[in-house]
């Protein structure tokens, strides 16, 4: 204890001494005295930089004594350089006024740390993509995400189709998806990674195994947060994209600041894709018996176009609010409507019988109230509140007596009785209303310049009620008509401290999870009236992150979280169709470890190199799987443990103003570590997870060969996925069990006319028309094209 006290005393003493170091702070505004948010302030000699906050303020800490040039830049403004002489003062105030630059109206790449880079350099392992620089290109968010180390995105059949995220060996529900910090399960699937255009996103943050309390809910293997586009000045951003397979995408973002305090905005998107790409299938040729029954008379291997694979979705949102008031940095209200319609060509696998009628529709009204106030009580307190109230309707239709062949022909009366469904196993017409709310309050107490305490509480409640006239009746009742409710309370506390001129940054956090719910009790089969069954449980989690800055170019970091995922409503209460309740189901748990090293070096001019090497270990237990081997309905059960370990490398370099490249590499292995001695897969790799994949890209810009306000750039990216087996393979290889090695090359060209805010982009995906697969062995499109036009207008 005495030793501990001594260390604390020494550390605090060191802090006090270091507090005498020089810091530079100030404000960056434009010529209209408007604060500039996101402006970059960089010291030329050192890799020290920061960005301004929403009020235009910045602060550079621990700047060594000497002479420097401060470089201040912002999108659409002329870069400003100012010589600074730092002597013995502890703090210097420098304000900047940037003049608007016609020639830099579009996005520019500035040397310095973007918000994405700031996030990516935290003590916990986060990959962050700055989507703004990609918005001139005709690329998908799923593809951008798929190129990150440790991440694999797999879909079930083209643009908009169902998505499975694999992150550091975690898969499915273990990886939570957030839209602007809101878990997407509360707002439906209308705003998700598979349909959200890149032009609606500022940033994508990927939390690898460790979730900060202000973001995380109950995520077992990490989470992906899609950050909605934010504006600080009047703005109009519109794009339209047309592509192969009758693909159309349009986005629209408008924002108007009435005066310095009031703002309104409208944004939305529309997506449509026929997804009728070609693939090779085995097609049945049907015949009929004398009594009219159907049989498969023959089969043929043919190339077909997918014919029941449409995706359509749209989103419209209005928002308004006030900002920069004494009592609120932001108080805003958003109301949006999402709608999506999906057809499904097949189930989890491509068989010889396609689906031709199953559809799913979802419509949702999403409302959000946001209140942000930083720096209360003389900078002591930050408050951030975000609440949502959402109404989601989902209709799943899978009921038909028709059978289809792969040529799209209808064979009437081909299905009967319980077989009259295409994918779900029995006729379904499930119409479910979800009413949900999520509330998050985060407060940051700035105990000291280098010591913060963050308190966060998240509350969410979902209520499901609906009907399925074709579904099973229980005691003559449709169980869907009895509301099912699931509520969660997740509290978090986090303490972050920065030591030795921020050379050492430590974060400690703890989380408390409580959840409860009620639903019809399917077990009370002998009751005359089915009673409600209530359920409640709680658990804890904790974690830490440490970052040690070796020098201005190099830091190492390590993080850990004992993570938890609360069972979903269907896992607890069943789904009335294929799964019965399991009231004793436990949360999934995982010990998540990260250890990484980060190196970045700037050279003369704009040349730089960056290396981010991370190793991870995930010890997962009580993983929930659906067990279909019971007497009638199956059941979700805690039944497996798994160990995932791997290494991921992100290497990038900028070799000149014109040329940059990056390479991402992931090697991982996921082993079944269950204690079930009857399960022979214990100790073996869990199938259907690729263990080696590489992404690389090369970007070349003709900026120096073009007029100043024009830019022509090229991007070449390639994606390599080593072959992997989707069931355990034996000593004698069975090629049918393997998804072949995939090598994909994409090419993109973008032409920007910056003074007009216009950009044109052509993207050729899978340029070599190589064989490619989505989940398991579902074929992906061959060579395909996208063309995008984007207009960006920024009002002065």
């Amino acid at each position, binding site marked *: 204890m005495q030793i501990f006290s001594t260390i604390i005393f020494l550390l605090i003493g060191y802090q006090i001494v270091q507090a005498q170091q020089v810091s530079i702070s100030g404000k960056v505004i434009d010529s209209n005295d408007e604060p500039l948010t996101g402006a970059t302030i960089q010291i030329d000699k050192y890799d020290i930089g920061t960005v301004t906050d929403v009020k235009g303020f910045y602060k550079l800490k621990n700047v060594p004594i000497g002479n420097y040039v401060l470089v201040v830049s912002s999108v659409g403004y002329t870069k400003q350089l100012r010589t600074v002489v730092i002597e013995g003062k502890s703090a210097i105030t420098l304000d900047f006024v940037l003049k608007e630059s016609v020639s830099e109206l579009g996005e520019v790449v500035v040397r310095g740390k973007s918000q994405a880079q700031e996030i990516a350099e935290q003590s916990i392992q986060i990959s962050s993509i700055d989507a703004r620089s990609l918005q001139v290109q005709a690329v998908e968010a799923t593809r951008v995400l798929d190129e990150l180390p440790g991440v694999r995105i797999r879909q079930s059949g083209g643009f908009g189709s169902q998505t499975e995220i694999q992150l550091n060996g975690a898969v499915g529900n273990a990886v939570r998806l957030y839209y602007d910090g809101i878990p997407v399960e509360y707002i439906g699937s209308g705003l998700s990674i598979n349909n959200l255009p890149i032009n609606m996103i500022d940033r994508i943050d990927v939390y690898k195994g460790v979730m900060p309390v202000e973001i995380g809910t109950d995520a077992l293997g990490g989470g992906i947060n899609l950050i909605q586009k934010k504006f600080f000045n009047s703005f109009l951003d519109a794009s339209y994209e047309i592509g192969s397979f009758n693909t159309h995408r349009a986005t629209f973002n408008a924002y108007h600041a009435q005066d310095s305090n009031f703002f309104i905005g409208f944004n939305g998107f529309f997506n449509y894709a026929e997804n009728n790409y070609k693939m090779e299938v*085995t097609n049945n040729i049907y015949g009929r018996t*004398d*009594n009219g*029954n*159907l*049989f*498969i*008379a023959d*089969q043929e291997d043919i190339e077909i176009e997918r014919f029941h694979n449409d995706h359509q979705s749209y989103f419209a949102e209005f928002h308004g609010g006030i900002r920069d008031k004494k009592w609120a940095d932001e108080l805003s209200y958003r109301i949006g409507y999402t709608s999506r319609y999906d057809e499904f060509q097949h189930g989890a696998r491509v*068989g*010889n*019988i396609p689906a031709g009628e199953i559809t799913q529709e979802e419509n949702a009204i999403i409302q959000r109230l946001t209140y942000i106030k930083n720096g209360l009580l003389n900078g002591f307190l930050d408050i951030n509140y975000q609440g949502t109230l959402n109404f989601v309707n989902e209709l799943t239709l899978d009921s038909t007596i028709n*059978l289809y062949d792969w040529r799209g022909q209808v064979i009437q009366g*081909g299905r*009967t*009785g*319980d077989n009259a469904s295409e994918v779900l196993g029995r006729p379904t017409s499930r119409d479910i209303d979800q009413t949900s709310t999520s509330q998050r309050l985060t407060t940051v107490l700035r105990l000291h310049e280098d010591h913060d305490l963050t308190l966060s509480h998240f509350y969410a409640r979902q209520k499901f009620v609906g009907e399925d006239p074709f579904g099973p009746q229980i005691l003559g009742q449709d169980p869907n008509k009895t509301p099912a409710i699931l509520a969660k309370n997740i509290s978090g506390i986090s303490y972050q401290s920065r030591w030795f001129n921020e050379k050492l940054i430590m974060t400690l956090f703890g989380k408390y999870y409580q959840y409860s719910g009620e639903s019809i009790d*399917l*077990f*009370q089969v002998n009751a005359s009236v089915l009673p409600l069954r209530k359920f409640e449980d709680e658990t804890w989690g904790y974690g830490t992150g440490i970052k040690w800055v070796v020098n201005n170019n190099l830091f190492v970091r390590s993080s850990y979280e004992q993570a938890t995922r609360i069972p979903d409503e269907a896992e607890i209460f069943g789904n009335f169709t294929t799964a*019965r*309740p*399991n009231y004793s189901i436990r949360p999934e748990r995982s010990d998540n470890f990260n250890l990484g090293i980060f190196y970045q070096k700037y050279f003369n001019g704009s040349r730089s*190199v960056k290396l981010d090497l991370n190793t991870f270990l995930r010890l997962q237990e009580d*993983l929930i*799987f659906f067990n279909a*081997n*019971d*007497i*009638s*309905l199956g*059941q979700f059960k805690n*039944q497996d443990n798994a160990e995932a370990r791997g290494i991921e490398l992100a290497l990038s*370099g900028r*070799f000149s103003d014109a040329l940059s*490249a990056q*390479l991402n590499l992931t090697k991982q292995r996921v082993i079944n570590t*269950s204690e079930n001695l*009857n*399960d*022979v*897969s214990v100790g073996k790799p869990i*199938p259907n997870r690729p263990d080696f994949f590489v992404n*690389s890209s*090369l970007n070349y810009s003709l900026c120096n060969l073009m007029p100043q306000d024009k830019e022509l750039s090229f991007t*070449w*990216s*390639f994606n390599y996925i080593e072959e992997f087996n*989707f*069931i*355990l*393979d*034996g*000593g*004698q290889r*069975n090629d*049918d*069990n393997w998804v072949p090695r995939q*090598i994909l*090359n994409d090419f993109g060209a973008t032409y920007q006319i910056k003074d007009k805010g216009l950009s044109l982009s052509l993207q050729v995906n899978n340029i070599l028309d190589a064989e490619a697969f989505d989940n398991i062995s579902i074929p992906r499109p061959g060579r395909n094209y996208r063309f995008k036009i984007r207009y960006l207008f920024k009002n002065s």
Partner: protein
Amino acid sequence: MKKARFLLLIVLLPISTLFIGSCSDDDDNNNPIPESKKSGFVLVTQVGLSTVESFFSQFSEEFPTGAIDNTQGKSFENFFVRGQLGNELYVNTVDQAKGVSKVVVSATGEIEVIGELATIDAAFPVEIVDSNTGYLDDRNDLDIEIFNPSTMMLTGSIDMSSALVVPQADDNIYQEFIVRDDKMFVAYRPRKGTAYASDSLIFHVIDLTTNTFEKSIVLDGHKAPVSSQDPIIDEQGNIYIATQGDLTVPNLFRPSIVKIPAGSTEFDPEYNFKPIDLTPLGAGLPIQVLTQFIYDANGIAYIVGGVEVPPTILQLFAEKGGPFDGNWTPADFGIAFDALRTEPSAKWIEVDLNAQTINIIDDIPLTSPFSGANASKIGANFYFSVVGDQENAFYQYTPSTKTGIRAFQITDGGIPAGLYDLSQN
């Protein structure tokens, strides 16, 4: 210099993929199927994964002995063997498609699929009569399909629209085909719910000379026929059918063996052999199980019969105040069924179908009755699967000496799912 190398690496990496990616696939799929093995053995094991089930199938020239790692064989998504004709195994398709695959062992010892017959819905049951005639049920409709095992082509169908259907069970599916001379006896199974949804044992009789439905026969007091790989028909032509009864309703439907006498197409109402009642705990067993049935000769057959109650189920009895009354929930039944998969509580039992007596084979340890109970007759011996805490093996039983001994242990690859002698006629 290092920077230059780095730049070179980054530039060359995508370029190199042009050449790698453009390599053509020279696999020749038109190679003739090599000559197949006419003798040897195929051991099939089943892996019960949480998310995926798979099978390992391994060929060996000699009969397996000692410790067998069956993962050294070839894995398949499916490998439920439904029939055998010489060295050909007929299995439900080896991938996720529906139908039947014809499988042989190539001259190099690899399991190879040499023919497939696709069906609209699941193909079950399957009965191979000879190289020209087989029957299967495509569960998409009521009809029974006739096919040619040599060509794996459908050759006709049997209209079953006149067959008896239990109203609450929606329509017919079938559990087993038994071919005796020019008649086929088709075990009815309700489509909806579990096998227990029908309160009677129902068989449909087919006239194979005309391939027409003849009649449905009903035997009350029995339900849930146990499907066996080979029909149990004695030397006189008597057909024996094992029924499980209803596990969820004690003392009402208990396991039994019933008979369709030689020359008759009706159940023998007098024949009602309840072998489990003859075990030491007998009728006092609160849960009776019968899961496998294989014939030897002269009225002697073998079954897997429950002789104990798994500890987990005993605990449930204590908690619920007794077996299977109104206090039992579907979850309790689920736990009980899991216990029958994982807790050894059954024995291989010799049954004399004529004398209606039993002989529990003491040399073979307890096995888990719902976990791959499997039997093969190879030469003069039987090979019975045993799955328990310490055992995952096939035991050899010699009827002439009435002795059993472990033939080989399966150390990896799952629980036994079949042992096949390719030289079998």
